[in-house]
Protein backbone atom coordinates (compact mmCIF):
# COMPACT_ATOMS: atom_id res chain seq x y z
CA UNK A 1 0.00 0.00 0.00
CA UNK A 2 1.33 3.36 -1.02
CA UNK A 3 0.38 6.29 1.19
CA UNK A 4 1.32 8.96 -1.35
CA UNK A 5 -1.27 7.60 -3.80
CA UNK A 6 -3.92 7.53 -1.05
CA UNK A 7 -3.10 11.10 -0.06
CA UNK A 8 -3.01 12.24 -3.70
CA UNK A 9 -6.48 10.77 -4.19
CA UNK A 10 -7.78 12.41 -1.02
CA UNK A 11 -6.29 15.75 -2.05
CA UNK A 12 -7.80 15.45 -5.48
CA UNK A 13 -11.28 14.81 -4.01
CA UNK A 14 -10.89 17.73 -1.60
CA UNK A 15 -9.81 19.98 -4.50
CA UNK A 16 -12.95 18.94 -6.37
CA UNK A 17 -14.98 19.95 -3.32
CA UNK A 18 -13.09 23.22 -3.01
CA UNK A 19 -14.10 24.14 -6.55
CA UNK A 20 -17.71 23.63 -5.48
CA UNK A 21 -18.25 26.09 -2.62
CA UNK A 22 -22.01 25.71 -2.75
CA UNK A 23 -21.78 22.03 -1.83
CA UNK A 24 -19.46 22.87 1.08
CA UNK A 25 -21.88 25.52 2.30
CA UNK A 26 -24.82 23.11 2.07
CA UNK A 27 -22.88 20.40 3.89
CA UNK A 28 -22.33 22.69 6.84
CA UNK A 29 -25.32 24.99 6.86
CA UNK A 30 -28.04 22.39 6.21
CA UNK A 31 -27.45 20.34 9.41
CA UNK A 32 -27.13 23.50 11.56
CA UNK A 33 -30.30 24.89 9.98
CA UNK A 34 -32.18 21.64 10.68
CA UNK A 35 -30.94 21.57 14.27
CA UNK A 36 -32.15 25.13 14.76
CA UNK A 37 -35.59 24.32 13.40
CA UNK A 38 -35.73 21.28 15.65
CA UNK A 39 -34.95 23.40 18.68
CA UNK A 40 -37.91 25.69 18.01
CA UNK A 41 -40.23 22.83 17.02
CA UNK A 42 -39.69 21.43 20.52
CA UNK A 43 -39.55 24.84 22.14
CA UNK A 44 -41.89 23.76 24.94
CA UNK A 45 -40.36 20.33 25.39
CA UNK A 46 -36.60 20.87 25.77
CA UNK A 47 -36.16 17.27 26.97
CA UNK A 48 -37.44 16.00 23.61
CA UNK A 49 -34.99 18.28 21.80
CA UNK A 50 -32.23 16.82 23.97
CA UNK A 51 -33.12 13.29 22.92
CA UNK A 52 -33.84 13.84 19.22
CA UNK A 53 -31.15 16.43 18.46
CA UNK A 54 -28.54 14.26 20.08
CA UNK A 55 -29.35 11.29 17.90
CA UNK A 56 -29.62 13.44 14.80
CA UNK A 57 -26.06 14.64 15.32
CA UNK A 58 -25.09 11.11 14.34
CA UNK A 59 -27.58 10.82 11.51
CA UNK A 60 -26.99 14.07 9.57
CA UNK A 61 -23.34 13.47 8.72
CA UNK A 62 -24.26 9.96 7.66
CA UNK A 63 -27.01 11.13 5.30
CA UNK A 64 -24.86 13.86 3.79
CA UNK A 65 -21.83 11.65 3.23
CA UNK A 66 -23.98 8.84 1.85
CA UNK A 67 -25.39 11.14 -0.81
CA UNK A 68 -22.13 12.83 -1.67
CA UNK A 69 -20.20 9.58 -1.92
CA UNK A 70 -22.74 7.69 -3.96
CA UNK A 71 -22.98 10.52 -6.48
CA UNK A 72 -19.22 11.16 -6.52
CA UNK A 73 -18.26 7.53 -7.14
CA UNK A 74 -21.00 7.09 -9.68
CA UNK A 75 -19.58 10.08 -11.51
CA UNK A 76 -16.16 8.44 -11.46
CA UNK A 77 -17.72 5.38 -13.05
CA UNK A 78 -19.74 7.15 -15.71
CA UNK A 79 -17.06 9.70 -16.65
CA UNK A 80 -14.57 6.89 -17.27
CA UNK A 81 -12.09 8.28 -14.74
CA UNK A 82 -12.43 5.21 -12.51
CA UNK A 83 -11.61 2.82 -15.34
CA UNK A 84 -8.78 5.12 -16.36
CA UNK A 85 -7.39 5.07 -12.81
CA UNK A 86 -7.65 1.32 -12.35
CA UNK A 87 -5.31 0.71 -15.28
CA UNK A 88 -2.71 2.88 -13.52
CA UNK A 89 -0.63 1.63 -10.59
CA UNK A 90 -3.21 2.63 -7.95
CA UNK A 91 -4.89 -0.30 -6.16
CA UNK A 92 -8.62 -0.50 -5.44
CA UNK A 93 -7.97 -0.28 -1.73
CA UNK A 94 -5.79 2.82 -2.13
CA UNK A 95 -8.55 4.40 -4.16
CA UNK A 96 -11.19 3.61 -1.50
CA UNK A 97 -8.93 4.77 1.32
CA UNK A 98 -8.34 8.02 -0.57
CA UNK A 99 -12.09 8.56 -0.52
CA UNK A 100 -12.29 7.61 3.16
CA UNK A 101 -9.52 10.07 4.04
CA UNK A 102 -10.98 12.95 2.03
CA UNK A 103 -14.52 12.51 3.30
CA UNK A 104 -13.19 11.80 6.79
CA UNK A 105 -11.58 15.26 6.75
CA UNK A 106 -14.75 16.84 5.36
CA UNK A 107 -16.83 14.99 7.95
CA UNK A 108 -14.53 16.16 10.73
CA UNK A 109 -14.98 19.81 9.78
CA UNK A 110 -18.72 19.31 9.47
CA UNK A 111 -18.94 17.51 12.82
CA UNK A 112 -16.90 20.14 14.66
CA UNK A 113 -19.08 22.96 13.37
CA UNK A 114 -22.40 21.20 13.82
CA UNK A 115 -21.70 19.92 17.34
CA UNK A 116 -20.31 23.33 18.33
CA UNK A 117 -23.50 24.97 17.11
CA UNK A 118 -25.60 22.40 18.96
CA UNK A 119 -23.66 22.62 22.22
CA UNK A 120 -23.26 26.40 22.06
CA UNK A 121 -26.10 28.58 20.80
CA UNK A 122 -28.66 25.74 20.64
CA UNK A 123 -28.02 24.75 24.24
CA UNK A 124 -27.68 20.98 23.85
CA UNK A 125 -26.35 19.41 27.05
CA UNK A 126 -24.12 16.36 26.93
CA UNK A 127 -22.77 14.21 29.71
CA UNK A 128 -19.83 12.88 27.71
CA UNK A 129 -17.04 14.90 26.10
CA UNK A 130 -17.45 16.98 22.97
CA UNK A 131 -14.40 15.29 21.48
CA UNK A 132 -16.03 11.87 21.83
CA UNK A 133 -19.19 13.23 20.26
CA UNK A 134 -17.20 14.62 17.32
CA UNK A 135 -15.38 11.31 16.89
CA UNK A 136 -18.68 9.45 16.81
CA UNK A 137 -20.06 11.92 14.27
CA UNK A 138 -16.97 11.49 12.08
CA UNK A 139 -17.28 7.71 12.19
CA UNK A 140 -21.00 7.93 11.48
CA UNK A 141 -20.13 10.08 8.47
CA UNK A 142 -17.57 7.50 7.34
CA UNK A 143 -20.20 4.81 7.76
CA UNK A 144 -22.48 6.80 5.46
CA UNK A 145 -19.58 7.10 3.04
CA UNK A 146 -18.95 3.35 3.17
CA UNK A 147 -22.61 2.64 2.46
CA UNK A 148 -22.66 5.18 -0.38
CA UNK A 149 -19.51 3.72 -1.90
CA UNK A 150 -20.92 0.21 -1.78
CA UNK A 151 -24.42 0.91 -3.08
CA UNK A 152 -23.17 3.15 -5.88
CA UNK A 153 -21.89 0.02 -7.61
CA UNK A 154 -25.53 -1.07 -7.95
CA UNK A 155 -26.58 2.21 -9.54
CA UNK A 156 -26.30 2.84 -13.24
CA UNK A 157 -27.53 6.42 -13.25
CA UNK A 158 -27.41 9.37 -10.85
CA UNK A 159 -31.20 9.16 -10.50
CA UNK A 160 -30.85 5.65 -9.16
CA UNK A 161 -27.98 6.62 -6.86
CA UNK A 162 -30.04 9.36 -5.25
CA UNK A 163 -33.01 7.01 -4.82
CA UNK A 164 -30.85 4.71 -2.72
CA UNK A 165 -31.10 7.21 0.09
CA UNK A 166 -34.82 6.65 0.76
CA UNK A 167 -34.40 2.97 -0.11
CA UNK A 168 -31.38 2.18 2.06
CA UNK A 169 -31.13 4.87 4.73
CA UNK A 170 -34.72 5.71 5.61
CA UNK A 171 -35.72 2.16 6.62
CA UNK A 172 -32.63 2.11 8.83
CA UNK A 173 -33.67 5.42 10.31
CA UNK A 174 -37.18 4.12 11.08
CA UNK A 175 -35.76 1.03 12.79
CA UNK A 176 -32.88 2.79 14.55
CA UNK A 177 -34.83 3.58 17.70
CA UNK A 178 -34.92 7.26 16.90
CA UNK A 179 -38.70 7.34 16.53
CA UNK A 180 -39.68 4.60 18.95
CA UNK A 181 -37.50 2.59 21.32
CA UNK A 182 -36.29 -0.57 19.61
CA UNK A 183 -37.43 -2.72 22.52
CA UNK A 184 -41.03 -1.68 21.87
CA UNK A 185 -40.97 -2.85 18.24
CA UNK A 186 -42.23 -6.27 17.12
CA UNK A 187 -39.52 -8.84 17.79
CA UNK A 188 -38.77 -9.38 14.09
CA UNK A 189 -38.10 -5.69 13.49
CA UNK A 190 -35.95 -5.48 16.57
CA UNK A 191 -33.83 -8.38 15.34
CA UNK A 192 -33.46 -6.75 11.93
CA UNK A 193 -32.44 -3.49 13.55
CA UNK A 194 -29.59 -5.31 15.28
CA UNK A 195 -27.97 -5.84 11.90
CA UNK A 196 -28.29 -2.27 10.65
CA UNK A 197 -25.33 0.09 10.97
CA UNK A 198 -27.46 3.19 11.54
CA UNK A 199 -28.85 1.65 14.74
CA UNK A 200 -25.40 1.79 16.29
CA UNK A 201 -24.73 5.27 14.94
CA UNK A 202 -27.84 6.51 16.78
CA UNK A 203 -27.11 4.43 19.90
CA UNK A 204 -23.50 5.57 20.19
CA UNK A 205 -24.41 9.25 19.85
CA UNK A 206 -27.20 8.88 22.36
CA UNK A 207 -24.90 7.21 24.88
CA UNK A 208 -22.28 9.96 24.62
CA UNK A 209 -24.99 12.50 25.25
CA UNK A 210 -26.65 10.74 28.17
CA UNK A 211 -23.36 9.46 29.52
CA UNK A 212 -24.71 5.92 29.79
CA UNK A 213 -22.55 2.80 29.55
CA UNK A 214 -22.04 0.50 26.59
CA UNK A 215 -20.65 3.17 24.30
CA UNK A 216 -17.52 1.20 23.46
CA UNK A 217 -19.53 -1.74 22.08
CA UNK A 218 -21.56 0.52 19.79
CA UNK A 219 -18.46 2.36 18.65
CA UNK A 220 -16.59 -0.88 17.92
CA UNK A 221 -19.54 -2.13 15.89
CA UNK A 222 -19.55 1.10 13.87
CA UNK A 223 -15.86 0.59 13.10
CA UNK A 224 -16.49 -3.05 12.13
CA UNK A 225 -19.36 -2.09 9.82
CA UNK A 226 -17.14 0.60 8.30
CA UNK A 227 -14.27 -1.79 7.62
CA UNK A 228 -16.64 -4.36 6.11
CA UNK A 229 -18.25 -1.72 3.87
CA UNK A 230 -14.89 -0.35 2.71
CA UNK A 231 -13.78 -3.90 1.94
CA UNK A 232 -16.96 -4.63 0.00
CA UNK A 233 -16.60 -1.25 -1.72
CA UNK A 234 -13.09 -2.20 -2.85
CA UNK A 235 -14.30 -5.60 -4.10
CA UNK A 236 -17.19 -3.97 -5.97
CA UNK A 237 -14.74 -1.95 -8.09
CA UNK A 238 -14.07 -3.99 -11.20
CA UNK A 239 -10.98 -3.57 -13.26
CA UNK A 240 -12.46 -5.56 -16.13
CA UNK A 241 -15.91 -5.42 -17.65
CA UNK A 242 -17.81 -7.30 -20.33
Amino acid at each position, binding site marked *: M*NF*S*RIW*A*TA*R*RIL*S*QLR*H*DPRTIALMIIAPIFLMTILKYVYNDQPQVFQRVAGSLLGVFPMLVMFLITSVATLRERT*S*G*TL*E*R*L*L*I*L*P*ITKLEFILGYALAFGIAAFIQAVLVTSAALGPLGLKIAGSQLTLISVAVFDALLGMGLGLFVSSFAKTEFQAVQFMPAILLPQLLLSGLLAPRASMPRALEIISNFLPLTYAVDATRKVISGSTGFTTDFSLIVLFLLALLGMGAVSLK*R*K*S*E
Partner: protein
Amino acid sequence: MSASVTTRNLRIVRDGKTIINDLTFEVGKGLIAGILGPSGSGKTTIFRSIVGVQKITSGEITVLGQPVGAKDLRTRIGYLTQSASIYSDLTIVENLRYFAKVLGTSEISIDEILDLVDLRKNKKQLASSLSGGERARLALATALLGKPELLILDEPTVGLDPVLRIELWNLFHSLAAQGKTLLVSSHVMDEAERCDSLILLRDGEILAQGSPSQLKAQTGEDEMEAVFISLVGAR
Protein backbone atom coordinates in the same frame (compact mmCIF):
# COMPACT_ATOMS: atom_id res chain seq x y z
CA MET B 1 11.86 -6.32 -35.15
CA SER B 2 10.09 -6.99 -31.84
CA ALA B 3 6.36 -6.48 -31.68
CA SER B 4 4.86 -4.15 -29.08
CA VAL B 5 1.39 -5.57 -29.37
CA THR B 6 0.41 -8.99 -30.63
CA THR B 7 -3.08 -10.43 -30.66
CA ARG B 8 -3.77 -14.01 -31.69
CA ASN B 9 -7.26 -15.25 -32.54
CA LEU B 10 -8.82 -12.66 -30.28
CA ARG B 11 -12.55 -13.23 -29.86
CA ILE B 12 -14.95 -11.21 -27.73
CA VAL B 13 -18.58 -12.15 -27.29
CA ARG B 14 -20.90 -9.81 -25.40
CA ASP B 15 -24.48 -10.84 -24.62
CA GLY B 16 -24.32 -13.61 -27.20
CA LYS B 17 -23.20 -11.22 -29.90
CA THR B 18 -19.74 -11.52 -31.42
CA ILE B 19 -18.06 -8.13 -31.12
CA ILE B 20 -14.57 -9.17 -32.18
CA ASN B 21 -14.04 -12.24 -34.30
CA ASP B 22 -10.72 -14.05 -34.71
CA LEU B 23 -8.51 -11.01 -34.67
CA THR B 24 -4.82 -11.57 -35.28
CA PHE B 25 -2.44 -8.71 -35.77
CA GLU B 26 0.94 -7.38 -34.73
CA VAL B 27 2.21 -3.87 -34.19
CA GLY B 28 5.98 -3.35 -34.43
CA LYS B 29 7.92 -1.23 -31.95
CA GLY B 30 8.35 2.42 -32.89
CA LEU B 31 5.54 2.35 -35.41
CA ILE B 32 2.22 4.12 -35.70
CA ALA B 33 -0.53 1.64 -36.37
CA GLY B 34 -3.93 2.89 -37.37
CA ILE B 35 -7.11 1.00 -36.66
CA LEU B 36 -9.73 2.26 -39.03
CA GLY B 37 -13.30 1.39 -39.43
CA PRO B 38 -16.79 2.76 -39.10
CA SER B 39 -18.14 3.39 -35.62
CA GLY B 40 -19.35 0.18 -34.04
CA SER B 41 -16.71 -1.86 -35.82
CA GLY B 42 -14.98 -2.77 -32.55
CA LYS B 43 -12.07 -0.30 -32.37
CA THR B 44 -12.68 0.74 -28.77
CA THR B 45 -13.25 -2.88 -27.68
CA ILE B 46 -9.88 -3.87 -29.14
CA PHE B 47 -8.17 -1.00 -27.32
CA ARG B 48 -9.88 -1.87 -24.07
CA SER B 49 -8.66 -5.45 -24.36
CA ILE B 50 -5.08 -4.34 -25.01
CA VAL B 51 -5.22 -2.08 -21.97
CA GLY B 52 -6.66 -4.94 -19.91
CA VAL B 53 -10.11 -3.66 -18.93
CA GLN B 54 -12.10 -5.81 -21.35
CA LYS B 55 -13.01 -9.42 -20.60
CA ILE B 56 -11.97 -11.51 -23.56
CA THR B 57 -13.75 -14.68 -24.61
CA SER B 58 -10.77 -16.43 -26.17
CA GLY B 59 -7.46 -15.71 -27.79
CA GLU B 60 -4.20 -14.22 -26.64
CA ILE B 61 -2.81 -10.72 -26.30
CA THR B 62 0.82 -9.90 -25.62
CA VAL B 63 1.75 -6.32 -24.79
CA LEU B 64 5.37 -5.15 -24.59
CA GLY B 65 6.47 -8.77 -24.19
CA GLN B 66 4.06 -9.55 -21.36
CA PRO B 67 0.62 -11.10 -21.12
CA VAL B 68 -2.08 -8.45 -21.08
CA GLY B 69 -3.02 -7.18 -17.63
CA ALA B 70 0.46 -7.71 -16.14
CA LYS B 71 1.02 -5.32 -13.22
CA ASP B 72 4.24 -3.98 -14.65
CA LEU B 73 2.40 -2.76 -17.76
CA ARG B 74 0.42 -0.17 -15.82
CA THR B 75 3.13 2.47 -16.02
CA ARG B 76 4.16 1.51 -19.54
CA ILE B 77 0.90 2.11 -21.40
CA GLY B 78 -0.73 5.47 -21.96
CA TYR B 79 -4.43 5.23 -22.77
CA LEU B 80 -6.55 7.98 -24.24
CA THR B 81 -10.21 7.02 -24.02
CA GLN B 82 -12.66 8.18 -26.63
CA SER B 83 -14.61 10.47 -24.33
CA ALA B 84 -12.10 12.47 -22.31
CA SER B 85 -11.70 10.75 -18.92
CA ILE B 86 -10.74 13.78 -16.89
CA TYR B 87 -12.12 15.51 -13.83
CA SER B 88 -14.27 18.40 -15.05
CA ASP B 89 -14.28 20.02 -11.61
CA LEU B 90 -10.49 20.27 -11.44
CA THR B 91 -8.18 22.65 -13.27
CA ILE B 92 -5.93 21.44 -16.06
CA VAL B 93 -2.87 21.38 -13.85
CA GLU B 94 -4.73 19.72 -10.95
CA ASN B 95 -5.83 16.94 -13.29
CA LEU B 96 -2.28 16.34 -14.46
CA ARG B 97 -0.82 16.60 -10.97
CA TYR B 98 -3.17 13.89 -9.73
CA PHE B 99 -2.50 11.47 -12.57
CA ALA B 100 1.25 12.13 -12.21
CA LYS B 101 1.08 11.26 -8.50
CA VAL B 102 -0.85 8.07 -9.17
CA LEU B 103 1.72 7.10 -11.79
CA GLY B 104 4.53 8.02 -9.45
CA THR B 105 6.21 10.33 -11.96
CA SER B 106 7.63 13.70 -11.12
CA GLU B 107 5.45 16.77 -11.46
CA ILE B 108 8.27 18.66 -13.15
CA SER B 109 7.37 17.18 -16.50
CA ILE B 110 3.84 18.64 -16.38
CA ASP B 111 4.72 21.96 -18.02
CA GLU B 112 6.67 20.12 -20.67
CA ILE B 113 3.63 18.00 -21.50
CA LEU B 114 1.34 21.03 -21.45
CA ASP B 115 3.59 22.58 -24.08
CA LEU B 116 3.27 19.48 -26.25
CA VAL B 117 -0.51 19.78 -26.30
CA ASP B 118 -0.46 23.60 -26.25
CA LEU B 119 -2.38 24.04 -23.01
CA ARG B 120 0.24 25.71 -20.82
CA LYS B 121 -1.23 29.19 -21.01
CA ASN B 122 -4.59 28.16 -19.55
CA LYS B 123 -3.36 25.56 -17.10
CA LYS B 124 -5.25 27.13 -14.18
CA GLN B 125 -8.55 26.88 -16.03
CA LEU B 126 -11.23 24.46 -14.85
CA ALA B 127 -11.63 21.52 -17.19
CA SER B 128 -15.40 22.07 -17.29
CA SER B 129 -14.84 25.43 -18.99
CA LEU B 130 -12.68 24.00 -21.76
CA SER B 131 -13.77 23.57 -25.35
CA GLY B 132 -14.16 20.06 -26.77
CA GLY B 133 -10.78 20.25 -28.45
CA GLU B 134 -9.06 21.48 -25.30
CA ARG B 135 -10.65 18.68 -23.26
CA ALA B 136 -9.37 16.15 -25.77
CA ARG B 137 -5.88 17.63 -25.53
CA LEU B 138 -5.97 17.56 -21.73
CA ALA B 139 -6.94 13.90 -21.85
CA LEU B 140 -4.08 13.29 -24.27
CA ALA B 141 -1.72 15.07 -21.88
CA THR B 142 -2.73 12.69 -19.06
CA ALA B 143 -2.01 9.75 -21.37
CA LEU B 144 1.45 11.15 -22.14
CA LEU B 145 2.41 11.47 -18.46
CA GLY B 146 5.18 9.16 -17.35
CA LYS B 147 6.49 8.76 -20.91
CA PRO B 148 4.78 5.44 -21.67
CA GLU B 149 6.33 3.12 -24.26
CA LEU B 150 2.98 2.28 -25.79
CA LEU B 151 0.27 4.81 -26.50
CA ILE B 152 -3.27 3.67 -27.17
CA LEU B 153 -5.14 6.61 -28.59
CA ASP B 154 -8.84 6.22 -29.24
CA GLU B 155 -9.84 8.85 -31.81
CA PRO B 156 -7.35 11.46 -30.57
CA THR B 157 -8.12 14.02 -33.24
CA VAL B 158 -11.89 13.87 -33.33
CA GLY B 159 -13.41 17.35 -33.12
CA LEU B 160 -10.09 19.14 -33.57
CA ASP B 161 -9.45 21.83 -36.15
CA PRO B 162 -7.18 20.96 -39.09
CA VAL B 163 -4.18 22.96 -37.81
CA LEU B 164 -4.25 21.24 -34.46
CA ARG B 165 -4.72 17.88 -36.13
CA ILE B 166 -1.56 18.35 -38.14
CA GLU B 167 0.31 19.45 -35.03
CA LEU B 168 -0.83 16.37 -33.13
CA TRP B 169 0.15 14.05 -35.96
CA ASN B 170 3.58 15.70 -35.97
CA LEU B 171 3.74 14.99 -32.24
CA PHE B 172 2.78 11.35 -32.85
CA HIS B 173 5.52 11.00 -35.44
CA SER B 174 8.13 12.50 -33.15
CA LEU B 175 7.04 10.11 -30.37
CA ALA B 176 7.36 7.18 -32.76
CA ALA B 177 10.80 8.44 -33.79
CA GLN B 178 11.78 8.21 -30.10
CA GLY B 179 10.89 4.51 -30.22
CA LYS B 180 7.41 4.66 -28.81
CA THR B 181 4.64 2.60 -30.33
CA LEU B 182 1.32 4.21 -31.10
CA LEU B 183 -1.98 2.57 -31.77
CA VAL B 184 -4.41 5.14 -33.09
CA SER B 185 -8.01 4.70 -34.07
CA SER B 186 -9.85 6.95 -36.40
CA HIS B 187 -12.75 6.90 -38.75
CA VAL B 188 -11.25 9.65 -40.87
CA MET B 189 -9.64 7.96 -43.81
CA ASP B 190 -7.23 10.79 -44.66
CA GLU B 191 -5.49 10.16 -41.34
CA ALA B 192 -4.71 6.65 -42.50
CA GLU B 193 -2.05 8.04 -44.82
CA ARG B 194 -0.07 9.16 -41.79
CA CYS B 195 0.18 5.68 -40.26
CA ASP B 196 2.96 3.16 -40.86
CA SER B 197 0.58 0.26 -40.85
CA LEU B 198 -3.16 -0.06 -41.03
CA ILE B 199 -5.79 -2.42 -39.85
CA LEU B 200 -9.10 -1.94 -41.58
CA LEU B 201 -11.92 -3.19 -39.47
CA ARG B 202 -15.57 -3.92 -40.12
CA ASP B 203 -18.04 -5.63 -37.79
CA GLY B 204 -15.23 -6.86 -35.57
CA GLU B 205 -13.31 -8.52 -38.36
CA ILE B 206 -10.20 -7.46 -40.20
CA LEU B 207 -10.97 -6.46 -43.76
CA ALA B 208 -7.34 -5.92 -44.65
CA GLN B 209 -4.04 -5.01 -43.08
CA GLY B 210 -0.77 -3.62 -44.36
CA SER B 211 0.96 -0.32 -45.01
CA PRO B 212 -1.03 2.40 -46.81
CA SER B 213 0.94 1.83 -50.02
CA GLN B 214 0.40 -1.94 -49.84
CA LEU B 215 -3.32 -1.48 -49.47
CA LYS B 216 -3.41 0.97 -52.35
CA ALA B 217 -1.48 -1.41 -54.55
CA GLN B 218 -3.74 -4.29 -53.52
CA THR B 219 -6.87 -2.44 -54.55
CA GLY B 220 -5.46 -0.27 -57.34
CA GLU B 221 -6.87 2.90 -55.76
CA ASP B 222 -5.00 6.14 -54.84
CA GLU B 223 -7.25 7.42 -52.08
CA MET B 224 -7.69 5.66 -48.74
CA GLU B 225 -11.39 6.35 -48.88
CA ALA B 226 -11.62 4.49 -52.17
CA VAL B 227 -9.39 1.70 -50.81
CA PHE B 228 -11.81 1.14 -47.97
CA ILE B 229 -14.87 1.19 -50.18
CA SER B 230 -13.29 -1.19 -52.64
CA LEU B 231 -12.32 -3.58 -49.82
CA VAL B 232 -15.83 -3.50 -48.40
CA GLY B 233 -17.27 -4.18 -51.86
CA ALA B 234 -14.88 -7.08 -52.43
CA ARG B 235 -16.35 -9.05 -49.54
